[in-house]
């Protein structure tokens, strides 16, 4: 009986020990406490874009990538081409399946961090984007659209890849992520997802998502709503304000002139 009891205790202890191992082992490969600072952006009258800091406790890995991606937006663009010896708009191209904003912060070069297949799957880097964006035109396309579109978006600040993701070691030995995303002033008010990826030997160890909300407040919100919901009132208001301002300044200058004379 005593032997049987001892056996049961051993089995129970074994289970407890194994269970603890099951719980602690995967946690070593997990990204913990991810957060974006600030997690809520208010777009007010003096908003000029900001640097969002992404922090997390990360497992030991070769490198990290932080990604902020906006919703897909259709765009109609003019494309220039050479006719005879002059550069003109030769086609109108409709671009679909392209994210409105695409920001990436990496700790190392993208190709050193993850395989092509992983890049493709997780939409990491411009090459993965190029394959997904569609171009349609009434004129035959020349094949340089992908390259030119990325160049166009980078030039406007909508797309950016930087190396501002840094891995630090805390005094207690924990690995900490500190990444910076440059949020442009023209970010659309909507909810975004910031994703953190950890890679080791070009394989994905873990990924987590954090929410980032952008909202217009105060005067910008009032003006946007008025312009969209009551365009006639807004148009008349814009004219009246302009005429009053112009008239007042015109009369003020004229009075000064009369006094001088």
């Amino acid at each position: 009986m005593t032997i049987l009891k001892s056996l049961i205790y051993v089995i129970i202890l074994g289970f407890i020990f194994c269970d603890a191992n099951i719980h602690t082992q995967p946690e070593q490969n997990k990204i913990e406490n991810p957060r974006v600072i600030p997690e809520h952006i208010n777009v007010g009258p003096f908003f000029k874009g900001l640097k969002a800091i992404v922090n997390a406790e990360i497992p030991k890995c070769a490198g990290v990538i932080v990604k902020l991606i906006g919703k897909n937006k259709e765009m109609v663009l003019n494309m220039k081409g050479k006719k005879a010896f002059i550069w003109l708009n030769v086609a109108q191209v409709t671009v679909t399946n392209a994210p409105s904003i695409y920001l990436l912060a990496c700790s190392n070069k993208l190709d050193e961090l993850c395989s092509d297949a992983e890049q493709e799957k997780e939409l990491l880097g411009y090459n993965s984007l190029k394959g997904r964006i569609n171009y349609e035109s009434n004129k035959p396309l020349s094949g340089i659209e992908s390259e030119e579109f990325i160049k166009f978006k980078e030039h406007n600040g909508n797309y950016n890849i930087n190396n501002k993701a840094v891995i630090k070691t805390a005094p207690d030995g924990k690995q900490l992520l500190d990444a910076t995303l440059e949020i442009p002033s023209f970010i659309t008010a909507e909810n975004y997802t910031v994703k953190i990826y950890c890679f080791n030997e070009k394989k994905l160890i873990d990924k987590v998502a954090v929410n980032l909300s952008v909202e217009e407040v105060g005067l910008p919100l009032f003006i946007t709503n008025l312009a969209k919901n009551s365009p006639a009132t807004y148009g008349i208001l814009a004219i009246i304000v302009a005429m009053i301002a112009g008239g007042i300044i015109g009369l003020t200058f004229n009075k000064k002139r009369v006094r001088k004379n």
Partner: protein
Amino acid sequence: MNLFIYLPVAGVSVSIFLLLGLGLAVGFLSGLFGVGGGFLLTPLLIMIGIPPTVAAASDSNQIVAASTSGTVAHGRRGNVDFKMGFYLLIGGVIGGTLGVQLIKILRATGNADFVIKLTYIVMLGIIGTYMFQESLRNLKMPRRRIKKISRMRVSEAEEKKPSKILQLYRSLPFQTHFEKSGVTISVITPVFLGILVGILAAIMGVGGGFIMVPVMVYMLRMPMHVVVGTSLFQILVTCINVTFMQAYYNQTVDIVLALILLLGSTIGAQLGAKVSDRLNADQMKVILALMVLLVMVQMVYGLLVHPELLFSVGGSH
């Protein structure tokens, strides 16, 4: 310290001082020459990152303020020929409507961009060169001689056979005297010229001030100071219409952007009007001609050199 302001419709943040400076510079030109400045300010706004459609629409809104200010200033000095401006406006509205239809046809055939660019270069080239040559010739000549020659020309013209254009002007019905401008012509002339300018303005996508000014000076023979005031009055009415249409149909008027620009431009317009009183007409024409030629050269350069970006935002020409 640089203070940034968020433009809600444009969706971008720009330095207030940069916008004020742009407004001041363009308003100054507006007051000096009676041109709206749209052909200068819109490309500058695009250059600093404002979306093209918002730049064009908000520019029209700020021109409403600048031209109100300019019209008030010139009107108080008796430099606005409202009667002539009214007939030019009728023509401008008809011409603008025709021009928009013409652009639609050209777009369908795929030649719109070529025609627009070519029209710009030809118009700017002709106007700029003609104004520059004539004004420079007058500046070089002593004043007495100019008066003598112009008197001689008038008497010669009266004695000899009048030119075909003058004959045509005189033979047209509905002859009216325009007191402020000091000319007697048929109302058909300003309406017809207004139509031509309206078509060109619609094709080129501008208010038409810089075409209308030379038309009034050289074809309607109006005095330069009345031309400036009348042109501003005409621009005011045109831009009120454009602002409302853009706000109503496209929601592209950014009132914050327009307000900052107009603050600079209205003050600039007053300063411009003051300077225009001190300069003589030929000096003003030389400066305007040089500006027009500079814009033309920049356009030709843009057509010949490989652009940095092949894509640009569509929807406007």
